[in-house]
Structure formats: C-alpha cells, structure tokens
C-alpha cells in the first residue's frame, strides 16, 4: 500500500448511540481522527447486529478507506468481517474483540482482568465477610458484563463473602439500576457492597440506597470510570471504586493503529490498555471535567 | 350455490319452521314472552309490532343468532338447538338483516358468494370468471341485472347495498327467508321489483318472514300477519280478515286517528334561500326556500340527491356552486359546527353509520350536539343534562326510558328516536330531517309528527326529506321533488297527491 493518505475517510461503526459510553467512544474517535486529518463517517447500528452488518456494507460501498468498530457486546460477526476482508480494507476493533480474528488490530481493556482488580478492592473493603450483591446489565448473552462479573467473582469466591445475585437486569441504565436496587433493598436486610456491571446502573443503585437511608451500611462499586462516578469516588461517598474503561484512551490508540495500517505499516494485533482500578487514592488524578463521559 | 330459481317446488303450505313457547330476556328486558308461531312453506308471513316489541329478537332466535331462555325451535317437525347463525343457515334459514353485514373492501360478487366461491375443478383455486358469472345471474333473477357485480361494495349506495344483502341471502336456495325491514332504504320502483321477486320465491315454496312498519306493504304482500306487543304474541291472522286500523289496534292497544297534526299557518320570519346550489356528481342547480314555521317536504327516489343537498347546507359536505342565504345573510357553512352555530341542524339518514355512538348511553348520545348549551366553562351541568334528556325520552316515548342505557341495546326504532332527540335538543331554527321516521312504528311516528308540527308552529323552519309518501303528503306545507340530482317538481299542499309526486319523481309526467 501507499503512504498515509491525509484525507482518508474512516468509517466508524458503533453498535448503538443510546448509551453514554458509546457516544463518548464515537466522539473520541472523531476527535482523534480529526487530529490526524482523517474524515470520519459514523454509522449507528441501533443496537441491532443485522443493522451493523448493513452499515458495514454501506460504508464499504461508500468507499471508506478503513473501519473502526465498537460493536460491544457482539462476540463475533463472521459474515460482515468476511465482507471487509474481501473489500481489502483495514479494520480496527475498539473496546470489544471479536472471536475468530479476521481483524487487523484490536484495542481495549481486559474486562476480566480489571474485574479481578475491582474484585480485590471489594474483597479488601469487606474483609472476607458480609453480603455482596451483584447487578447485571443483561441480556443473558452480554459477555462483556459476564467477563466483568467473573473477574470480580474470582476474588470473592472461597471467602466468607456471601453472594447475592439480583434477579432482574439493570439494563445498563440509571433507571434500571434504581428499580432493581429498590426491590433488593426491600427484600434483603443485609447488603454490604453492591457491584454493578457499569457505572450508570451503579449511580442509580446509589440513589436507591440513599432513599432507603442505608448509605452508611452499603457501599457501591461500578465499572467504566464514568465522570459522575469518579466524582463520587473523589468526594468520598459510599461509591468506593470502579474499573477504568476509558473511551478516550482506547480511541487514541485505535486511531493510531488505523493511521499506521493506512500507511501500510505492520501493527500490533491486540492491544490491551493499562489496567486501572479507580479508588479514592487515584480518582482525583483520573477525573477530567471536560470529558463527555 | 345453485341460484334461487333452479328448483321448482310447489306451494304445499307445509309447516317448516316453528317457534314454540320461546322466551328471551336481555338483563331486565323481557324481549320475548312465550311466543309460539308457525311458518309455512310457500307463504309470506308478516310480523308487525311497535318498536322494541321483539320482532328483531324473534328473527335472531329463529336464525340462531341468539339462544333462547325457554322454548324451542322446530325445523320440519324436529326440534333443533340453534347456537349460531350458521346452525340456522345449514337448515336453510337465511336472513336479510336490519343492518349492514357486508364487507366493504370486497367486490359485490365476493360478498354475495362469500364462503362458497366457486373453485376450479382440478386446482381448487378460486375461479373468478365463474364467480362473476354466477353473481351476475343471481342479480338477473332478482330483477337487478344492471348492478355491476365487480364493483367494490363500499362504494354502493344504501339502496344498492340492501339489494346485495338480499342477493347474499338467496345465493343458497333458502327454505326460509327472513326480511327485517328490507324496504327502509329502497325506492318505490325498487320495492316493486323486490316484491315481485319475493312472490316468485314464495311460489317456489320458500317460507318468507317479512317485517315492516309500512302496513300498506303488509297488505300488498303477505298472506298472514302476526302481531307482537311487549314481547308477547297478540295474534296471528290472515291479512284478508283484517285491515290497517285493526292491525294498529292490535299493535298499540288503541286506535290511532289523525296521524298528522293540525297546523297553524306559517308566520313570517327568518328563512333559508338556496340558489343554484350544486355539488359535482350529486346534484345541480337546486333552488328553493324554507321559511319560519313552514314544513317543506322533499321527495325523490333513492339516490336522487336529497341527502347530499342536506349535507351541503349543513356543511358536512361542501357545495361546488351556488349560494345560500340564511336569516337575510349569505351563508356558507364549511363545517357542521359552523352550521350549528347559525342554528341549523341536520338529522342524517344513517343512524348507525353517522348518527349514534354505540357504546355510549342515551344521555350522552342525546346531548352530543348540544353540549355547549349545557355546560359552564366547558364543564357539563349534569342535572340540567339529565333533565333535558329525560324530557325528550318522555316526549318521544323512548323505551326503555332509562337514560343511562347503552344505545346499542335499544331496538332499531328507539335508536332512531334517540338520534331525533339529539337534534331536537339543539334548539335549531332550521331543522333538516333526513328520513326521520325510518324504522319507527306507527304510534311513535305519530308522536314524532306531533313534535315536528309543534316545532314548526313555534316558528322553526323544517326541511323534511322522506321517501315515505304519506309522510311527505301529510306533513308538508309545500313539497319539492328531486330526480337524478335536479329539482323537478314543486307542489303546494292542495295540489300534491301520491300519483303526481310519484310521476314527477320517476319522470313519467
């Protein structure tokens, strides 16, 4: 291939634009792309794997030079990936790695490893006893959430900590989080820590706990490192930790990889961003007031 | 599937259908009280009675549309339990309903042959060519060969739809044919054609049950007549052994004389003047006046354009040419709301289609057009509303006189009275009445005529559109006749007669 085209067009494929994390990722990718002089086009899959597949086809038909895709929590997408390969365009995955590996580069966190780190924070906080409640985002086939939960579980298993799984999904949102938490609080007299698979649900759960006047006895731990969550951690509330999954860090490396690929260079296939577990100690330094997320 | 004419059985007078001791209640209403009645092959058997007497209920019981609480139905001497209309149909009992049972989005052919469309012998696929042929033949035998069987049924006029209903009922040779007020929407000539066909059917051995409020038709057509009152059988007798006055006495329990009220001469006042009014495709160049205290009758055959004129004056449809003056000012309503604001009210002819809100009470329906008058700051004054509606219920003898009753549970005639009550409550200065007594019994008609007469005497202008000749003749100060969208005749009260109106309406001067 030739030298890097400064006016290259990059297609950004996102599974959805409804959740703040995905919006933040798209904006970060656009900003990083602009810095390097790329044009960007965004296709929003509306949460539907089939629409994502159509989006990829459309962007290829439009003649983009490369694709950056954030299609978490989809696990693999053999059909569309084959189409990209056939079109001979480079593809960089961000956030979510696809099994099957026909991509050129992947940048993301290791949800399980960070989950383990978060689990350590929880285990330390609980001191080997008490009740840990876990709230899932859902649906059942969301492996991102499953990896995070497994990571946490690996550190609390075989300790004196009792596990309590919320039966209903929090649907990754504040309102889902508050609803599930309210019902759990009504039923369970003792809960010491609540782990939610993302910060949005956790922020909702925190409200429910406050409404039930049990802030003193229940701490919450989330995932993602959403701005509002970091603020809570900095303030020293009962929000005691989160796992970092920073869209800006991932996007920066992702676009870097794309630029290199367009320039015909070889790049590292899988890049795991540094494992950062956010606690009161490091929260202040990780808080970026201008971040959209 | 064979057309009605195919078989040729004789008039043997055998009893084919018997209702024995049939009892039916709807909640608190005792609709049929131990009715026993027998119908013979080759005979036209009329059923008459006041509104709510139980005529339609009896037909429903005979066809299986409703079950009975007591008693039973015998067909050919064997007792049958009819649970659904299909049970009745399988036994050859077919019915032309008082209301529409057509599928508007299908062709005439398909409506007539619904459920037994002809199929191609080998493939089993519908054979449309054969179907259209079959339907056309059916209408030929009925006496309406001109009806285009490929038309969409929804585009037909009320009269044409009625004919399709009849064709549907006879598309399978019926052993018993029930006609519930089939002539309510038919014009004079069409009634003649229908009668001719019914007689032919009878001659081939069909038992015909015929329900009508037009007593003249009963004497013209039926051999025997049964009178129902309050759900009970008053008697069955040959038509030759009675007369109109006798039937009325049996129906109502008393004689009805002076059907039409005595009236004071019209007084000068506001008036409606219509000049050169037209609506493309419906009527053209229509000019007439209606003055305060005057009842102007408008006669014409079905489809002559009378209803369209009324709708244009009322703003329900828009005229394409012409001017209207009302109370000395030019007036062109663009909506019914505007017309009502100017004191013009229209009772439409289709009570189920655009008259009543089924599912709502008599109270709500009767006050629908006068809500502004009975509300303060948009809030209804319930006591005032109740008082006004109850007064109308008494005046028009609506039965049952319970204003909270759902109108869907009323008999056809009583529904019509509720619609009339709605318009009487508007305090309109010009009242346009399109077929106001359709389906109403003779006693109630008299009450309604009385009300209309008194309204006119109090200075209200009335335009009375009707296909009921005696009604037009009896009520009107002047009569206008429409034919094919044109105003073709004007008669004073003295010079009008049945013959002259008919001749004018059908173009046989």
């Amino acid at each position, binding site marked *: 291939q030739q030298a890097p085209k400064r006016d290259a067009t990059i297609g950004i494929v996102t599974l959805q634009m409804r959740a703040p994390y995905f919006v933040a990722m798209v904006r970060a990718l656009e900003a990083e792309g602009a810095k390097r002089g790329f044009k960007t086009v965004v296709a929003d899959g509306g949460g539907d794997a089939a629409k994502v597949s159509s989006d990829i086809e459309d962007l290829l038909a439009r003649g983009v030079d490369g694709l950056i895709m954030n299609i978490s929590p989809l696990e693999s997408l053999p059909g569309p990936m084959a189409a990209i390969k056939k079109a001979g365009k480079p593809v960089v995955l961000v956030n979510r790695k696809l099994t099957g590996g026909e991509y050129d580069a992947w940048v993301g966190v290791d949800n399980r490893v960070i989950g383990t780190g978060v689990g350590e924070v929880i285990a330390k906080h609980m001191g080997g006893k008490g009740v840990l409640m876990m709230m899932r985002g859902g649906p059942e086939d969301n492996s991102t959430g499953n990896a995070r939960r497994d990571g946490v579980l690996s550190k609390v298993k075989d300790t004196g900590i009792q596990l309590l799984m919320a*039966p209903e999904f929090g649907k990754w949102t504040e309102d889902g989080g*508050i*609803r599930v938490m309210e019902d759990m609080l009504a039923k369970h007299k003792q809960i010491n820590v609540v782990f939610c698979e993302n910060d*949005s649900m956790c922020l909702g759960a925190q409200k429910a706990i406050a409404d039930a006047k049990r802030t003193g006895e229940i701490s919450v731990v989330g995932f993602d490192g959403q701005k509002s969550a970091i603020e809570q951690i900095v303030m020293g509330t009962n929000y005691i930790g989160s796992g970092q999954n920073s869209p800006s860090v991932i996007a920066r490396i992702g676009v870097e990889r794309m630029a290199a690929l367009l320039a015909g260079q070889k790049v590292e296939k899988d890049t795991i961003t540094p494992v950062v577990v956010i606690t009161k100690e490091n929260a202040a330094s990780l808080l970026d007031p201008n971040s959209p997320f | 599937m064979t057309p009605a004419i195919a078989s040729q059985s004789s008039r043997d007078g055998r009893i084919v259908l018997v209702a024995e001791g049939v009892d039916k209640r709807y909640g608190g209403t005792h609709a049929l009280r131990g009715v026993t009645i027998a119908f013979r092959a080759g005979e036209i058997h009329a059923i008459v009675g006041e509104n709510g007497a139980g005529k339609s209920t009896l037909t429903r019981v005979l066809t299986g549309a409703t079950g009975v609480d007591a008693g039973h139905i015998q067909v050919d001497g064997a007792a049958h339990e009819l649970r659904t209309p299909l049970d009745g149909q399988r036994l050859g009992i077919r019915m032309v309903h008082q209301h529409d049972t057509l599928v508007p989005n299908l062709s005439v052919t398909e409506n007539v042959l619904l459920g037994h469309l002809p199929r191609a012998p080998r493939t089993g696929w519908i054979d449309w060519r054969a179907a259209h042929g079959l339907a056309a033949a059916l209408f030929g035998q009925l006496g309406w060969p001109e009806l285009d069987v490929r038309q969409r049924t929804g585009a037909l006029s009320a009269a044409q739809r009625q004919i399709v209903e009849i064709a549907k009922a006879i598309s399978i040779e019926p052993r018993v044919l029930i006609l519930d007020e089939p002539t309510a929407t038919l014009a004079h000539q069409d009634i003649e054609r229908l009668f001719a066909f019914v007689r032919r059917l009878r001659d081939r051995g069909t038992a015909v049950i015929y329900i009508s409020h037009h007593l003249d038709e009963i004497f013209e057509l039926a051999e025997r007549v049964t009178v129902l009152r309050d759900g009970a059988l008053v008697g069955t007798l040959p038509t030759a052994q009675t007369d109109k006055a006798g039937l009325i006495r049996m129906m109502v329990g008393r004689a009805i004389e002076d059907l039409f009220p005595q009236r004071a001469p019209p007084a000068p006042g506001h008036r409606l003047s219509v000049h050169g009014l037209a609506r493309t495709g419906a009527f053209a160049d229509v000019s007439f006046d209606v003055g305060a205290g005057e009842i102007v009758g408008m006669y014409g055959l079905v489809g002559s354009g009378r209803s369209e004129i009324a709708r244009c004056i009322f703003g329900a449809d828009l005229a394409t040419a012409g001017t209207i003056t009302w109370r000395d000012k030019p007036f062109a309503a663009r909506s019914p709301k505007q017309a009502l604001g100017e004191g013009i009210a229209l009772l439409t002819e289709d009570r189920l289609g655009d008259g009543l809100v089924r*599912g709502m*009470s008599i109270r709500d329906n009767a006050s*629908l057009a006068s809500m502004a008058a009975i509300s303060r700051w948009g809030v*209804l004054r319930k006591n005032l509303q109740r008082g006004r509606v109850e007064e109308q219920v008494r005046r028009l003898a609506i039965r049952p006189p319970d204003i909270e009753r759902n109108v869907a549970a009323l008999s056809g005639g009583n529904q019509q009275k509720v619609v009339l009550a709605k318009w009487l409550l508007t305090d309109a200065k010009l009242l346009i009445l399109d077929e106001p007594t359709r389906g109403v019994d003779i006693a109630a008609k008299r009450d309604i005529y009385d009300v209309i007469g008194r309204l006119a005497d109090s200075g209200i202008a009335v335009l009375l559109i009707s296909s009921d000749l005696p009604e037009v003749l009896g009520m009107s100060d002047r009569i206008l006749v429409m034919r094919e969208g044109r105003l073709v005749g004007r008669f004073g009260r003295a010079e009008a007669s049945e013959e002259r109106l008919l001749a004018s309406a059908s173009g046989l001067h």
Partner: protein
Amino acid sequence: MTASDRPAETAAPKDSRALFSARTLGIELTWRELIPVLCFFLLLTVAATFTDAFFTERNIGNLLRQIVANGLISLGMLIVILTGGIDLSVGSVVALGGVLFAGVADRLGIPAALAAAVTAGTLAGLINGTIISRFRLQPFIVTLATMGIIRGVVFIYTESPLSPRHESFRDLGAALVGPVSMGLLIMLACYLAASFFLNRTATGRATVAIGGNVEAVRLAGVNVPRTITIAYGLSGMLSALAGAILVSRLGIAQPSLGAAYELDAIAACVIGGAVLGGGSGSVLGTLFGVFTLGIINNLMNLLGVKSFYQELVKGAVIILAVLLVARGRKS
C-alpha cells in the same frame, strides 16, 4: 389510593360508578372495572403468601414510587386510545421532558424546569395530534415517526447524561409528603383530573365519543381535529411530567430514557379494559392495570425469578389478566 377510591360518595349512586369511568354504561362497565380489581387482589394475595418482603412499609413505598412514571404515561395513553388512536412517541417524550427538566433546573430553578419540560412535552403531543387529525393519517405510523424524531431532538439537545447540582432537584420524585411520595400525589391528582375531564367536560365526552363514532361526533358540531389534538397534547404533557419525575428520582437525565415505555403503557390500558381502536376504556381500570404491571415486576424481584424467566412470566400474567378481563366483560 384510599382517598380516591370513593370520591363520589356525594353524587347519586349511578354516578359514583362512572366518576372514574370513561363510559357511562350500566352493568357492563361495572364488570369491566371489577375484574381487573379482582385480578389485582389475587396478585396481592399471591404476593403476600410467597414472600414476607412484599407487605413491608419499605416495599409498598417502593412500589408506589415505581408505578408513578408508567401511571402518568398510561393515563395519557388511555385518553389517546379512547379517541381510537395510539401514541408510540411517549417514551421519547419522557426523555424530552427529562433532559429539559435536568437541563433547565440548574440555570432557572425547579419550577421553571418543570414548566419547560411540560410545555415541550405538550407541544410535542400537539404536533402529533395536529398531523394525525389534520391530515387524517394513521396514529400508529405518525407517532412511530415522531418517536424517532423526538428521540433525535433529545440527543441533539444532549448526548451525554445530565446530572444537575440543584439541591432540591430530587424532591419532585423522591420527597415524601406524609407517608407517600410527592410523585404519587401528583399522579393521583392527574387521575382525578383526567376522570373529571373525561366524564364531566364537553371536550372529554367528545374525546370518548370520537372513539365510538367519529363521523357522528363531527356531524354533532364538535371540532374533531381540535379534540384529537388535545388528546395527544395531554398524552405528551403527562409523558413529559413522568419524565421530569423520573429524572428527579434518578438524579440524572439520560437521553436514552424511556425506550419501549409505550408498550407498558398500552399494556396497562388494555389490562384495565381499554379497547385499542377506541370506544371503551376507563381511568380506574387503567390505574389498576398500572398497579398490576408494577406488582408483577416488583414481585418477580422479591421472589427472585431469574431474569429471562421474568419476561416469560410477565407475558403469561398479561395474557391471563386480559383473559380475565375479557371473561368479565362477557358475563
């Protein structure tokens, strides 16, 4: 709940049934309303038998707070359904009301924020109603389209969640007035008002009548487009109010709030006896539909029903509920 259960003690006996009903029928209506009530008590009994946690003050408090949003949305939906329409855009309007409430609160204070939210929601509804009634388009498709349009507008207004710092921001949704939440009181007030509107005002009666026979209503001199427009306006208003209360309760306004809320609202109306296509439905019935759905969700969490069985159970309970309502109607 208790106060509003018997509001019409003063009125004549015939009227007391109908104060909350959208129809003024006799026996039929009473049945329709009774059956959902029975279902409801059945559910309560099941609840009480299977879990101690249900009849605790805390849980009942939760429940009463959880149903507020769906309660308000369903009420607006009912009014629209009575006209023979449907409003799929409610979820997007919830988000619209929510983000405006949060967006304006810090700058202009809570009352102004609430006013902004409700005004915007009403406007959105009025636009729905205008398009539907003036151009005589099918409500389903129009509100499906505006559902997308309004959602787009919400995301253009803010693509990330807003969390205002105003100290009394959470009062509307979370503050208690005596034993119940402010939100619940607002909701009950809206139910009373809607019932009054539908039964005692000229426009309300016209709204109900339109669903029965629109042509008859038009010929009776009622301004049908205006009436329909008002119905959608009310739906928008109530949805935006629901959004504001919800966001106040959450303390954060997500632009993605309210997705698929229309389904629960329609379900509540139908469980309460409403007929899609118009002509039937009651305010009291809808209230019980809302409670029924709320209790199903709450109960499944208390009983610890696993997440994907929850959808299954909820679906089955809904079918059962409408089956009971339909049986009741027939008898």
